C-alpha cells in the first residue's frame, strides 16, 4: 500500500533557485527508505515538504492517497528527527519526550507509561530527569528519536541523524534504528549523504542529484546496475571506461573486446563501462584478460586496495583479499562484472531495455 507519494513536485525558492525539479516518489508503508545525494541535492527540501514545514511550488503530495499540500505540519501523522536534534534545551529528557503527548492532552499516567517504554526502547532508562544539555551526542540523538516515536507516527523522517556520531556509535545506532523500524513497522525516510549507510540500512534508496531523481531501487540494484555515471561514481568505488558495443553481449573498451551480459544496444554505439573494484582479481599475466602493472598497494584491514596501470594507460582500482602476486600481472573479471551504461539513458528507459532483452532471452 502506498503511504506517501510525490507527484511532479517542484520547489522553487523565492530567490528563483529551483531545488527540486518535477520529482516523483512513491513510498510503501512499513519500509525503510533512504534519500541519498551529495550536499545541496535537495534531500532536506524533500523532507521539509513531506513534514509540512514547506510547500511545493508545483505538484502534489499525497498521504494515503489524500492530497496534503495544505495540511499544517502539526496535523500530519508523521514526525521528524532533526539533523541537529532540536531538543528543547530548557526541558529535561522526560519532558522533551512527553512534549507531543502533553500537547495532545494525553492523561499524565499514560504519558508516564509511554515515555518510560520509549526510554527503554532507546536504552536510556533512568535518564528521564537529566538535562538534555548534559547528554552526549549519541544520547541526545536517541532522545530525539524517542520524542518522535512516542507519538506513534505512521512515518518517521530522519535528517542525517547519524552524521554527528563516531563510526562505532554510528554502526550501533544504524543497527538499533533498523531493529526499531522492524519492531514497530513504521515507514522510515532516512536522509543521508553517506552511501555505505544507505546501502546497509535501506529497503529502497532514492539517489538524488541537483534536485533530480537519478535512480531508485534496492541497494543491490543500485550498486550493481547504476543507470548513469553519477550513480556509479556516487555509490561505491568504480572503474569507468569509455567504449562501444560490438553486438549484443560483446563490448569493446581499452582496446580489447570482451564478452558481457548487456544487450539491447545498437552495435557501434558509444557506451560507458563500469567495473567494480571488488569484481576484479589479479592472476598470472597470461591468464588475465588484460595485462597490468601494479603501481601501489595499500592494506586496509580487510582488503588490499591496489592501483594498477594497463598498456593503454588506464589506471585500475582493484580490491582483493590477497596481495598482488607479481609486479606485472593479469587482470581477470567475469563477463557479468562488466556493466554497460548508455550515455544519457534515463531510469525508465533503462528499465524498459532491461525487460526487453530479458524477454528475448526466454
Amino acid at each position, binding site marked *: 500500500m502506498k503511504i506517501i507519494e510525490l507527484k511532479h513536485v517542484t520547489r522553487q525558492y523565492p530567490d528563483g533557485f529551483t531545488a527540486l525539479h518535477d520529482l516523483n516518489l512513491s513510498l510503501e508503508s512499513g519500509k525503510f527508505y533512504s534519500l541519498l545525494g551529495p550536499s545541496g541535492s535537495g534531500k532536506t527540501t524533500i523532507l521539509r515538504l513531506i513534514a509540512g514545514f514547506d510547500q511545493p511550488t508545483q505538484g502534489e503530495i499525497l498521504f494515503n492517497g489524500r492530497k496534503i499540500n495544505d495540511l*499544517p505540519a*502539526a496535523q500530519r501523522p508523521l*514526525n521528524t528527527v532533526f539533523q541537529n536534534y532540536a531538543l528543547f534545551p530548557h526541558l529535561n529528557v522526560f519532558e522533551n519526550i512527553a*512534549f*507531543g503527548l502533553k500537547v*495532545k492532552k494525553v492523561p499524565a499516567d499514560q504519558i508516564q507509561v509511554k515515555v518510560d517504554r520509549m526510554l527503554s526502547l532507546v536504552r536510556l532508562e533512568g535518564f528521564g530527569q537529566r538535562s538534555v*544539555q548534559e547528554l552526549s551526542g549519541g544520547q541526545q540523538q536517541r532522545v530525539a528519536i524517542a*520524542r*518522535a516515536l512516542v*507519538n506513534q507516527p505512521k512515518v518517521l523522517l530522519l535528517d542525517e541523524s547519524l552524521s554527528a556520531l563516531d563510526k562505532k556509535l554510528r554502526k550501533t545506532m544504524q543497527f538499533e534504528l533498523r531493529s526499531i523500524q522492524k519492531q514497530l513497522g513504521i515507514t522510515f525516510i532516512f536522509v543521508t549523504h553517506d552511501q555505505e549507510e544507505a546501502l546497509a540500512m535501506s529497503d529502497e534508496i532514492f539517489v538524488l542529484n541537483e534536485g533530480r531523481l537519478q535512480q531508485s531501487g534496492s541497494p543491490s540494484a543500485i550498486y550493481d546496475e547504476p543507470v548513469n555515471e553519477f550513480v556509479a561514481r556516487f555509490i561505491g568505488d568504480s572503474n569507468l571506461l569509455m567504449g562501444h558495443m560490438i553486438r549484443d553481449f560483446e563490448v569493446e573498451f581499452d582496446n580489447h573486446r570482451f564478452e558481457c551480459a548487456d544487450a539491447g544496444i545498437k552495435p557501434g554505439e558509444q557506451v560507458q563501462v563500469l567495473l567494480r573494484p571488488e569484481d576484479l582479481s589479479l592472476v598470472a599475466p597470461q591468464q588475465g584478460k588484460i595485462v597490468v602493472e601494479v603501481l601501489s598497494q595499500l592494506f586496509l584491514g580487510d582488503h588490499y586496495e591496489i592501483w594498477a596501470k594497463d598498456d593503454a594507460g588506464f589506471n585500475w582500482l582493484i580490491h582483493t583479499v590477497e596481495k598482488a602476486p607479481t609486479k606485472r600481472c593479469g587482470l581477470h573479471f567475469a563477463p557479468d562484472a562488466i556493466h554497460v551504461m548508455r550515455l544519457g539513458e534515463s531510469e525508465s528507459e533503462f528499465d524498459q531495455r532491461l525487460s526487453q532483452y530479458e524477454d528475448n532471452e526466454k
Partner: protein
Amino acid sequence: MKRIGRALYLILAFVLLYLPIVYLAYFSFSSGKDMVRFQHFSWVHYQVLWSDKELLAIFLQTIILAILSSLIATAIGTCGAWGIFRLRGYRRKTMLVLNNVLMVAPDVIIGASFLICFTALGIGLGFFSVLLSHIAFSIPIVVLMVLPRLQDLDLTLIDAAQDLGAGRGVIFNQIVLPEIMPGILSGLFMALTYSLDDFAVTFFVTGNGFKTLSVEIYSRARQGINLEINALSTVMLLVVMLLAGGYLFLTRQHELALGARS
C-alpha cells in the same frame, strides 16, 4: 604606555561623572543647611525626609508607576518583538526603523506630542496619562532588548514543536518564551529605570493631582537648596544601584547556565 594612558583616561572620566553624585551624597550626611561646608555627620536630613509624608507618598507613587508601566510595557514589547521577528523583508526594516526613531527622539518632543494627543482625546492629565506615556516610551526599549534573543533562537525548535503537534500559543508560551526570558528580563529592568528617572515626558503630561519624584525634586530644587533633596537623591541612587546589581546578577546566572550548556 598606551594602556596606562587609556586606564588614566577611563579613571578621569569616571571621576568626573561620579564626582557630583558623590558630592551630593556626601552633603546629605552634613548637619548643616548648605553645601558650602560639611558641618559634622548626622542623619538629620534623612529624618526630615522620613517625616515628610507628602514626599514619601510621591516616592511610593513613583515606584508603583514604574512597576506597573514596566510590566505592561514588557508584555506589549515582547509581543511586538515577536510580531516584528515574524515579518520579513522591508516590512521588518520599516518596523525596526519606526521603533528606533522612538528610541532616539528627544524626550521633549515625545512629551509635547503626548500632551497634544491627550488634550485632543480629552484624557485628563494625572496618573493615567503619565502611566500611558511611560508604557509608550518603554515599549521600544523592550522590543530592542528582546529582538536579539529572538534572532538567536534556533528556528528548528519551532519546527520541532510544530512537528509534535503544537499550535501557535503553545509554541510561544512553552518554547519561545523560556528561550528569550533573559531578553525580557533586561527589557523589564530597562523599562523600570526609564520610568523611575524620566523627567521630561512626565513633566509634560502630569497634572495637578499626580507627581513623580523627579518632577517633585525639580520643583523643590528650584526653590533653593535643601539638603533633604540630597538625602532623597542618595536613597534613589541606592535603589537604582540595587536594581542594576540585581540585573547583573541575573544575566551572570544566565551566562553561567549557557556556559554549562556548550
